[in-house]
């Protein structure tokens, strides 16, 4: 039954990808990308990879769809007709695809228990992490403790994304008050948003601090909280959203999250361990692991929230400006 569901989902995934290639309307393409992400999330869920599915659903289908839609508000929704011939790219793609398929022939059989991926470090994580880290959610212990340095790298990547966007676009505060911003006439949306937004933020906090015990963590929580503020900015307009959380404050927040993460590493070095060695944070090593993971997940959440919201501000203020002109 699970294989049948997998096959159906994969077929829908392939159909969505083909439709994306041949569509010229970029608005529809963005929507199909959201469907594509949801289908991948369902496949991950079917593979019991709940954390990855959660990330894919919240980042891939949620926030990136919104960011691409704001980009379309600046650039326009029609794809430009390309003039040059597509024979050479087709040739390159065919050769690369053939080489990749040839490469998969050497891969170990799918799902076999003797595969290297199941023999290398995974048994140690599965057997030792309940004693060493003591978290019910093993994904969080691998992500935040065993692979803490990689996760620091990911957080820095997210942080550098906002540096790139801000140095290219910048967030413009609007001077004129007279033009309509947001969806002023949508009374129903106003009421529903006021009901929904606090609940979304509450859910984000739950995901943030429940990540040790269930699926979730800093990345998903940051994205969900950013989605709540983006909803507020979309419905009430950017100026009112700036009054709640300003872009300058968000820049400080984005940097503070990365600094919080890295300073946990430095503090553990100061206490006599290695970089990001949480065992040094408390007298009991397992308690130290708990403290370390909670603090660095908070750093990740703060950075991801600030970065996503700031990128939305940058795109959104550009879009409003280009609509005025």
């Amino acid at each position, binding site marked *: 039954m699970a294989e049948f569901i997998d096959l159906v989902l994969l077929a829908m995934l392939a159909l969505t990808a083909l439709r994306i290639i041949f569509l010229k309307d970029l608005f529809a393409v963005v929507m199909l990308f959201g469907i594509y992400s949801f289908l991948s999330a369902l496949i991950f869920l079917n593979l019991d990879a709940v954390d990855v599915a959660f990330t894919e659903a919240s980042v891939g289908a949620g926030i990136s769809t919104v960011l691409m839609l704001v980009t379309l508000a600046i650039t326009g929704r029609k794809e430009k007709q390309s003039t040059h011939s597509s024979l050479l790219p087709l040739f390159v793609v065919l050769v690369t695809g053939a080489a990749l398929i040839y490469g998969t022939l050497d891969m170990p059989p799918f799902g076999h228990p003797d595969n290297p991926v199941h023999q290398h470090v995974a048994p140690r994580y599965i057997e030792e992490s309940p004693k060493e880290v003591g978290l019910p959610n093993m994904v969080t212990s691998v992500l935040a403790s065993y692979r803490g340095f990689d996760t620091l790298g990911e957080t820095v990547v997210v942080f550098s994304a906002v540096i790139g966007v801000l140095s290219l676009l910048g967030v413009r505060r609007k001077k004129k008050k007279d033009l309509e911003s947001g*969806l002023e*006439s*949508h009374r*129903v*949306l106003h009421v*529903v948003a006021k*009901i*929904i937004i606090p*609940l979304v933020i509450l859910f984000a906090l739950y995901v943030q601090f429940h990540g040790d015990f269930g699926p979730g963590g800093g990345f998903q929580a940051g994205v969900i909280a950013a989605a709540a503020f983006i909803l507020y900015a979309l419905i009430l307009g950017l100026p009112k959203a700036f009054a709640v959380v300003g872009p300058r404050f968000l820049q400080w927040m984005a940097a503070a999250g990365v600094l919080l993460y890295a300073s946990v590493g430095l503090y553990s070095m100061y206490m006599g361990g290695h970089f990001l060695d949480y065992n040094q944070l408390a007298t009991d090593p397992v308690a130290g692991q708990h403290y370390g993971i909670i603090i660095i997940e908070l750093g990740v959440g703060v950075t991801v929230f600030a970065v996503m919201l700031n990128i939305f501000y940058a795109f959104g203020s550009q879009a409003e400006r280009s609509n005025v002109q």
Partner: protein
Amino acid sequence: MDFLDIVSSILLLAGVFFGFSGAVGLFRFPDFFTRIHAASVTDSIAAILIIGALLLQTSFDLNTAKLVFILLFLMVTSPTASHALAKSARHGGLLTLAETRPQDKQGSAK
């Protein structure tokens, strides 16, 4: 328990029926407003019926509470989404089928 299973499967079948009819309507109906009507059937009644059926399968634990939360969230958000979509289309100047039909008879517009 048996009785609950029967009720749950009836609700599931009804949910599948409404979801399927919503999908058919999305493809077969002639214009935007009728299509959004069909899509909102999938959003609202099909989702409510299916989650109601799943609620009867739980043994009154944390999963029940989570499903109730999802149900409440969907009951607030999906009608709002349909409403916002229809209202935006209306404000953007999209006419209903009844309003465009007289022009069709004159052959002036498509």
